[in-house]
């Protein structure tokens, strides 16, 4: 099987415009369908102002709005406020209850994938599996940088899923784990904050060579006498892993949705940082059938110098997706 990768958009991508009141959720949904990305990922705690109190009437309004645009929900991004109270964490039972609250709302919205924050303990999720099965919601633990597909913390969730033999617990990769090149938007921002171009170039070069970040941080902070912006730039390398795309096939059975993180697309629709050109062929080869859901996070890196245009960024990413998917499929057919 191939050709089943679907394209979608997370409402997260439009945080700049929505924060500033320049777009509402319906504007985002309308735009997404206009570029052929009909799958909508929602963050109820961002996009539903009355959360966690959501009435059936509100759910009906959402469904009507989506169907007006020919869109549908793909994924529900949950949060877990373990630090709700000052000085003490939620008890295990309270954590399970909070997750069940989200599973219930997810089910009421007709959504079958739930993005679980990466810090949620695997043993807590294990306790939620029977309810997730009842609600028919897949709990996907977000594999987010600096973690990666084969990080031992992630493997604990995979082990629980295997042991239980459940199809309702797994992972949900964020493509930030495939940062092959240092994002130009990061570098430019640090240079505006006072990083010297030669030091910035050194940091980029170190990342290019995949030198373990602590060497670079020490070089910059101590040996080069780095200023605040330079040290901060070096420290971003702690969160800039380049996981091996070849491992995707081993983990594909555990995920049904992807957060397609990106920081900026070039005018000719290339992602200079995240290795989609290596990731998408792997997804196509293993016949993965989920949704690539745009997660634009470039706004915070450029908003000090230019107007953020999330629409244009997301549009370019989807041109790239179409191109890479078509290319990978044609190569598969030749073989």
């Amino acid at each position: 099987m191939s050709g089943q990768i679907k394209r979608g958009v997370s409402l997260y991508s439009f945080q700049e415009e929505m924060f500033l009141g320049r777009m509402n959720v319906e504007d985002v949904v309308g735009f997404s369908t206009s570029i052929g990305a009909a799958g909508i990922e929602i963050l109820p705690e961002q996009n539903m102002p009355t959360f966690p109190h959501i009435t059936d009437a509100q759910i009906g309004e959402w469904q009507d709005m989506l169907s007006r645009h020919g869109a549908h929900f793909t994924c529900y991004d949950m949060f877990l406020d373990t630090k709700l109270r000052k000085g003490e964490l939620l008890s295990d039972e309270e954590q399970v209850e909070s997750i069940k609250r989200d599973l219930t709302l997810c089910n009421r919205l007709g959504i079958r994938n739930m993005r679980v924050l990466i810090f949620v303990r695997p043993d807590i999720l294990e306790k939620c599996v029977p309810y997730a099965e009842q609600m028919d919601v897949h709990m996907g633990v977000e594999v987010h940088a600096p973690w990666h597909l084969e990080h031992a913390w992630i493997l604990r969730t995979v082990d629980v899923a295997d042991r239980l033999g459940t199809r309702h617990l797994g992972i949900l990769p964020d493509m930030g784990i495939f940062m092959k090149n240092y994002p130009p938007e990061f570098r430019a921002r640090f240079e505006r904050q006072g990083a010297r171009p030669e030091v910035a170039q050194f940091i980029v070069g170190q990342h290019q060579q995949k030198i373990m970040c602590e060497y670079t941080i020490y070089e910059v902070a101590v040996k080069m006498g780095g200023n605040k912006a330079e040290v901060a730039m070096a420290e971003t390398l702690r969160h800039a892993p380049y996981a091996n795309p070849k491992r995707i096939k081993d983990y594909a059975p555990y995920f049904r949705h992807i957060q397609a993180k990106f920081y900026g697309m070039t005018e000719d629709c290339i992602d200079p940082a995240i290795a989609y050109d290596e990731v998408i062929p792997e997804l196509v080869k293993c016949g993965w059938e989920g949704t690539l859901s745009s997660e634009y996070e470039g706004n915070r890196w450029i908003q000090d110098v230019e107007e953020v245009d999330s629409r244009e960024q997301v549009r370019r990413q989807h041109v790239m997706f179409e191109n890479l998917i078509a290319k990978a499929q044609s190569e598969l057919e030749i073989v």
Partner: protein
Amino acid sequence: MFDRYLIDADSLRNTGPADAPTGFAFDAKLGYYRGLGLSMVEKLDIAIDGEPLPREAVRFDEGLGPLTLDEMETAYDRRWPFGTAATILVDRPGGFPAGEHELSLLQQLRVSYLPFPAVNTDKKSVSLAA
């Protein structure tokens, strides 16, 4: 991620009697990509020209009535929604000083998945509308 947009500079106004203001107020948004329960807003530090105002002088109102920062700590059923301005009220006899001054706001949030508190800051040069 939204630091530069936190303070609504045009919202500054005095509170109390017009001829003897007892404080000032302004509107601000939460610097976060989602809404957050009020109990997890640990600090709203306000300063004028770098001079901090006491924590006890600050109150917060997202529309359901003003709370002191200590009261916010246990306001488990109230939230500051995403992208939504709330009112920050500050007790200061005489109100906001005349002329242009730098108003700063620091928000410290207890975000459960972060190992450290999230801190957002905004500074704007503001003055009361004539």
